[in-house]
């Protein structure tokens, strides 16, 4: 319940969990990339820093084409 110290602090921006290292998450904030919309290339779809860079470039090229 509310006073469970083991309860996770969940990611503020989405309910579902995004699997990405802290460094990739920080980079996403820095570049204004929404991780929930990034396809991860790592194991199980883990998002790498490279994926974030790619997403940022695709966004810059034409956000509506980003998938």
């Amino acid at each position, binding site marked *: 319940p509310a*006073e469970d110290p083991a309860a*996770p602090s969940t990611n503020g921006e989405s309910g579902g969990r995004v699997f990405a290292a802290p460094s990739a998450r920080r980079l996403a904030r820095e570049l204004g990339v929404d991780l929930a919309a990034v396809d991860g290339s790592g194991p199980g779809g883990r998002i790498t820093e490279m994926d974030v860079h790619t997403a940022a470039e695709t966004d810059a090229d034409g956000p509506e084409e980003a998938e």
Partner: protein
Amino acid sequence: MVVGDIATGTDVLVIGAGPGGYVAAIRAAQFDLDVTLVEKEAYGGTCLNHGCIPSKALVSATDVAHEAREAEHMGVHADPAIDMAGMTAWKDEVVDQLTTGVERLCKGTGVNLVEGTAEFADENTARVAHGGEGQGSESIEFEHAVVATGSRPVELPALPFDGERILSSRHALALESVPDSLLVVGAGYIGMELATVFAKAGSDVTVVEALDQALPMYEADVTRVVTQRAKSHGVDFHFEEAAADWEEREGGVTVVTEGEDSTVSEHDATKALVAVGREPVTDTVDLGAAGVETDADGFVPTDDRARTNVDHIFAVGDVTGEPMLAHEGMKAGEVAAEVIAGKPAALDQQAVPAAVFTDPEIGTVGLTEREAEEAGFSPVVGELPLRASGRALTHDDTDGFVRIVADAADGFVLGAQIVSPDASELIAEVGLAIEMGATLEDLVATVHTHPTLSEAVMEAAANAMGQAIHTLNR
């Protein structure tokens, strides 16, 4: 001596020098911001002076005595005696070294330290009343403020703290002698840690708890290990009893409890420790004057940048609510400072670990199997019982287990529950695994030193994959 009012200005005003506040102040000063840290009582706050540190010091010291006392079967014969005044003096030295260290680190980083109580005057001004008569006050204008005023023990109206018979954790951590008997009201982590300390020091300890198990925020098989061990140290448990009244008697107290169907019981003890929760400290700081809102329980709600409802005022640590843990406060303090400095920081961690320094310790991080199901995962679970760990056997300490929870689909590690010696340390690796988005396979492929308890983390992960070596796979 300064009398009257001085007005100064600062980029960042931090109110309260506990773990949340001093970390915010040091981190902000690292960005060359002008930082003023106001503390009314003692650098290091509750944690260093009356919480984490003194409690862990007493845990360690009573452990040394206890282990030696119980080591006959290992060929060690000792009959240790505890001198509580000496132990408390040593503990005070530890606290002194750390609080002096915090003060030095603040100064070394260029933080302006101000002793006194800070109260908001308006959205950009606070008034600091210096302690002691005729010490005057000063007015500080700030660009940003960080509220880090912490928490205090909840007092039961029927058992108000007097520091003599009815103790808070703070009083219990400063005792000069071991009470013959101690009644602990509340089997949360603070109650359980101190029950263990005093049982090992030689008190007859009784724990009463309103709910039906100790450490009710943990799974039943986790608390079972700790409760059994506490019983073996002589701790007597009474569940489903709520403290309702007390009276003084010759050399002690009688505490009256009410159970189900209003059954009334009486418990005699030399002293009673009430540890039933902590409440935010906001009455010292006049949040209303700055327009900062609190929730129904009096905590200050914040967003993932540690901001309150007022954009340039942040709040960190216990005053913001659960989890009321020092490391959560420190992380929030860091984030507040970084956000103020214009960095892309956020409280985006996936998991905050928590530890209970009982015997054995409990360390948890992330999701339990149940929580994982509720979050929509289809979890797979692996366990290694400690009796299968060579290192646990050589520690003569084999009650407990390591459990890893992962997502069955992709193998992502979601959580761990560890009951073992040094569980508080072992949990760190799983915390990193969760933050990194590591899979079970990643944990299993990482070579772990033999013989260590950390091998049990690897083997619990292997067990979840059906390929553990040192336990049969289900």
